[in-house]
């Protein structure tokens, strides 16, 4: 039983890393641009398929395919912002809600048109897992955890060590003061989408590598991503990481007690409870 819980916790950390990468992106967009990005899951989906092109069509090894996907997804994110969101800078939340859901549908349908509705995998065949102390972990799962840690550390240094990173934090603090101060807010927004795209690419490719690809893979994880962002305190980067890990671990461990089919419901229940009990999250986010 204990071994089982530890094993599921390990799987939870893998899933939690993926959720956290998505939640950081959602959280940053919310803090800096002021809206909830419901197309985020589908951005991850498209990113996973960009990685598929890298692996299957270009025969790249997975890490290079990931970088290939990061570049394309960052361009996609900036492109969507330039074409759609930049025209809606001062729109009301309900308009943004509808717009981001619209983008979500567009990305999902485009994925289906281009790559078809069936499941795909990066790599077929059997890979033997690492075994230690009776626990098992796939090599790709170790890569996911280490890759996520590396990205979060890089993001931390970007936000605290570069001019644009500091300006992103400043804009998340106070958008109108940023303008008064002379910060080029449109430039900061473009960088926000670049970072968000890179993180969504990592989340999407990792998710595809851990399971399989299909046009709804990202959308299906969207609820868990928002639950994680809210749990940690939306707008709070470190809260999103914590929230992602909590949601991931609780969802996996819950399969001991309930049918695995209800996993997403667990994330949803946590989100609802959080919104009632502590709407600003564990670490406190943007109000």
């Amino acid at each position, binding site marked *: 039983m204990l071994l089982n819980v530890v094993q599921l916790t390990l799987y939870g950390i893998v899933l939690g890393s993926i959720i956290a990468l998505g939640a950081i992106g959602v959280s940053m967009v919310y803090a800096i641009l002021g809206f909830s990005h419901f197309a985020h899951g589908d951005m991850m989906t498209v990113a996973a398929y960009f990685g598929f092109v890298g692996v299957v069509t270009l025969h790249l090894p997975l890490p290079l395919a990931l970088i290939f996907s990061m570049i394309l997804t960052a361009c996609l994110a900036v492109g969507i912002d330039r074409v759609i969101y930049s025209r809606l800078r001062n729109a009301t939340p309900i308009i943004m809600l509808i717009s981001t859901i619209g983008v979500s549908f567009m990305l999902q349908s485009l994925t289906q048109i281009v790559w078809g509705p069936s499941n795909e995998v990066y790599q077929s065949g059997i890979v033997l897992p690492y075994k230690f102390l009776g626990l098992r972990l796939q090599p790709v799962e170790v890569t996911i955890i280490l890759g996520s840690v590396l990205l979060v550390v890089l993001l931390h240094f970007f936000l605290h060590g570069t*001019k644009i990173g*500091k300006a992103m934090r400043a804009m998340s*603090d106070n958008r109108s*003061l*940023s*303008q*008064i101060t*002379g*910060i080029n807010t449109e430039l900061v927004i473009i960088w926000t989408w670049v970072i968000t795209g890179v993180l969504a690419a990592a989340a999407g490719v990792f998710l595809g590598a851990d399971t399989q690809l299909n046009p709804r893979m990202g959308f299906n994880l969207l609820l868990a991503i928002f639950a994680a962002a809210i749990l940690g305190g939306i707008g709070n980067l470190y809260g999103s990481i914590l929230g992602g890990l909590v949601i991931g671990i609780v969802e996996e461990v819950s399969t001991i007690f309930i049918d695995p089919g209800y996993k997403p419901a667990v994330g949803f229940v946590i989100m609802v409870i959080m919104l009632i009990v502590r709407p600003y999250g564990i670490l406190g986010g943007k109000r």
Partner: protein
Amino acid sequence: MSETNGNLLVAEDVYGGYGSADILNGISLRVAPGEFVSIVGPNGAGKSTAMKSLFGLIKVRAGKIAFEGREITKLRPDQIVRLGICYVPQEFNIFPSLTVKENLEMGAFIRNDDYSAEIENVYQLFPILKERRRQLVGTMSGGQRQMVAMGRALMLKPRLLMLDEPSAGLSPNFIELIFERIQEINRTGVGILLVEQNARQALEISDRGYVLVMGRNRHEDTGPNLVNNKEVAEMFLGG
């Protein structure tokens, strides 16, 4: 616009407000280079609104605003700040989750040259900020936040510094210190436009002052003359 000549900032007959109703009903004012000018008046006179209109934060319905002979009436704040005007709002004038030093760096965002001299300059003006340069500004006292806000605005070496009620909510000791520092900044040749609730204190150290009432100019004179003006004193200086 003959008055533009030799003046840093000139506003002529400005009308404007937030919604459909005007708050400013024809305000005119000017600031000469290096001059210290205060705007005072009773609550709701439109003092802060006047300042916001100068900085492009409020739509000006009629009238004309010029800085160094160039019309800025329709420019946005991020365009105006590049011309040499910096503005410190009354509230929410710092980035709370950034450190003191990062706040100052953000003040210099549009500069690509070396601005370490300006940071040193701010630290000299407010030594406590040097000591606390790594502290998050959100955890600091109101007076220290005001210092950060003013320091941030000095990073671009403005020729005009606009301050909206810098003494609001501060203890008397801090008010005195802030006013002293504003004078010190002014002595380096920076023009000051100050909106103040502490009218007497502000006018005493100003070269000139404007008294606004109901969104209009009521009086204009040298600072000391306004303090001694009977009508002004009765109106709101407390007799």
